[in-house]
């Protein structure tokens, strides 16, 4: 905090990451370590966990207690839900989606992963690459998290040996090569002792790479967003109906990808009407250009009928308008997915109804094999399905754009979100 300066704070960017590990991989300790070593812990918080550690007769101040959650969780000794944690260094602000390792792992990890720039995958140095590691990696690749950081933790318990780290790295690479992963980093660490987390380790001089904090602070994230295919899902129509702004008709939304400039030729989908951007507004400011993920308001040269759920795109770069999509679906509910079942579907700002036409295959999440004869899709399952919607939606492939390529399915009887899908 000594390096704090207001000017610096105002130019920082934001990195969202998720952490994945199985039970006892030291995930809570690692998060506690990042929070503590970045001086994001307040004295009263530290005092509270110090007292608890002492009461329990623990040898160290147990940093894992910093991420302790709800009473129900403490009583049952489990983590129920995704918790969000925050810290900042002079370079960046960080948001951690802290997802529980055990029960409902897929549902929670998918939730945390959906908005993450990076994922930390923890591996216990004594256990090496296990089934959980492969599952977490698969989900990270499925959700297209742009950067993976594989931390081989508990190096202190294997005498900081290089060959242990190397073997795990090789095993992991052999597996990960089968998946679509762009950017992966490996680090030997000890979250408990602090090796290579914030401070470079004195116990592993064979490791010449960066610390975890250095990576988090320096990973390039500007290309994590699609800057080329301009997409603007209309969220809300602003009509002030006041004397001063009598004819104002603004289309409010958050740019899902790309850059829009004043004067750009645009097309409204699915209707196909064309116009030009007259102004890009945000409160008292008028902007020359706006880009993802900015929330702005467009006004157009022509008066055309546009409502929530429509998408404004540049005329020379248009997405697909369709009523039939194939998606990889992660099922989030106990209640099974039904072929011919009808659901409410949410895609960008559009709500439609849909019917499940076919379950093509289920993924065996441990072997990554496609299982075609198992159509029983329940909580935490991942499957490829075909969907037909009641009216057209304007889509990109998820691999091209996470915002215009993702959907959720909602059970119409319970109103619960039951599925998360990525358009293929």
């Amino acid at each position, binding site marked *: 905090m000594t390096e704090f300066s207001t000017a610096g704070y105002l130019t*920082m960017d934001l990195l969202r990451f998720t952490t994945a590990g199985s039970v006892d991989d030291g995930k809570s300790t690692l998060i506690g370590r990042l929070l503590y070593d970045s001086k994001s812990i307040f004295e009263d918080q530290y005092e509270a966990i110090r007292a608890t550690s002492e009461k329990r007769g623990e040898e160290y101040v147990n940093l894992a207690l910093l991420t302790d959650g709800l009473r129900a969780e403490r009583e049952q000794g489990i983590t129920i839900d995704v918790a969000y944690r925050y810290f900042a260094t002079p370079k960046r602000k960080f948001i951690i989606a802290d997802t529980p390792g055990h029960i409902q792992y897929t549902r929670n990890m998918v939730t945390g992963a959906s908005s993450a720039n990076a994922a930390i995958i923890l591996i216990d140095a004594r256990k090496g690459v296990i089934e959980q590691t492969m599952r977490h990696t698969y989900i990270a690749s499925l959700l297209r998290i742009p950067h993976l950081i594989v931390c081989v933790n508990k190096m202190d318990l294997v005498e900081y040996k290089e060959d242990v780290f190397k073997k795990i790295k090789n095993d992991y690479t052999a597996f990960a090569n089968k998946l679509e992963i762009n950017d992966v980093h490996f680090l030997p660490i000890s979250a408990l002792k602090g090796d290579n987390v914030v401070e470079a380790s004195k116990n592993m001089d064979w490791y010449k790479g960066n610390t975890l904090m250095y990576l988090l602070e320096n990973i390039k994230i500007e290309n994590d967003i699609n800057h080329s295919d301009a997409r603007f899902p209309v969220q809300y129509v602003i009509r002030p109906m006041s004397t001063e702004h009598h004819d104002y008709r603004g289309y409010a939304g958050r740019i899902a990808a790309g850059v829009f400039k004043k004067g750009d030729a645009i097309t409204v989908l699915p209707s196909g009407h064309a116009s030009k951007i007259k102004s890009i507004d945000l409160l008292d400011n008028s902007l020359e250009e706006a880009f993802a993920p900015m929330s702005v308001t467009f006004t157009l040269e022509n008066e055309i009928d546009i409502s929530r759920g429509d998408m404004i795109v540049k005329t020379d770069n248009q997405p697909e308008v369709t009523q039939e999509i194939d998606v990889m679906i992660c099922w989030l509910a106990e209640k099974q997915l039904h072929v011919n079942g009808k659901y409410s579907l949410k895609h960008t700002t559009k709500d439609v109804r849909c019917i499940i036409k076919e379950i093509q295959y289920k993924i065996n999440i441990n072997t990554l094999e496609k299982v075609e004869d198992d159509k029983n899709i329940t909580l935490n399952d991942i499957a490829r399905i075909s969907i037909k919607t009641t009216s057209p939606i304007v889509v990109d492939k998820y691999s091209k754009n996470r915002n215009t390529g993702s959907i959720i399915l909602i059970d119409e009887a319970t109103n619960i979100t039951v599925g998360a899908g990525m358009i293929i």
Partner: protein
Amino acid sequence: MKNHTLTHLKELESESIFVLRELAAQFEKPALLFSGGKDSIVCFHLARKAFAPSKIPFPLVHVDTGHNFEETITFRDELAKKYGAQLIVGSVQQSIDEGKAIEEKGFSASRNILQTVTLLETIEKYKFDACIGGARRDEEKARAKERFFSHRDEFGQWDPKNQRPELWNLFNGRKHVAEHFRIFPISNWTEMDVWQYILQENIEIPSIYFTHERECFVRDGVIYAHSHVIPLKPNEKVEKMQVRFRTIGDISCTGAVLSKATTLEEIVEEVASTRVTERGSRIDDKRSEAAMEDRKKAGYF
């Protein structure tokens, strides 16, 4: 190529505006819970940005414990007037007078918990189906697990074990009759972000956030404002201190901090160097380890 990266404050602002517009699109009768504290002031400012040049499409609702700082009430009224916002006040005193809430007794009596009764009554009376709150996930461990769109059953209760997963930018606000939602647009902001944003946007805030001389007394290490609301114990003595408030709640449960900060820049510096949590001065959280969790389950903010 030009750099198309947002600063973290701009990205948070954009996310919050998105959430507010989703709320306006998905609900029929929303309201903004407005305490006059900095977090609800930031929410109000974001709402102005989200819907300009229209006025904000929902009223401000204040649950008034009757134990508020005078400066907060004046600020609230002036703000509503300046921007032409509708203001609805739910009175805890009235809930007490009508026998729906029972006043706590003793030296540490507070009306904090009673707010839930008045809040739920106000929601019912005006048939609000979504209430915007300025709660942040960094404040408290129960809040760390909140959603942007937080579902409440017909009794206003929060069920932390059964929350809807929130993925990408897709917010599910569907509900059955009589259920409602709490919407938290600044979930991802920290105390520092809020202050930096107030500074960056030059947002007006109540005077008691800045240092001033006030009659105070100390109890259990907390500096309290002296007022008729908190009876003094025999050994407690009132003295003039140079203080400001880091959070604004009820007089009975908001502690002050010694401070010399007279400008927003100085407050930001003070926040940067402070080593104690913001809610450390909130007596309402100190009642038990799960105080916030329990209040939230019962329908609190």
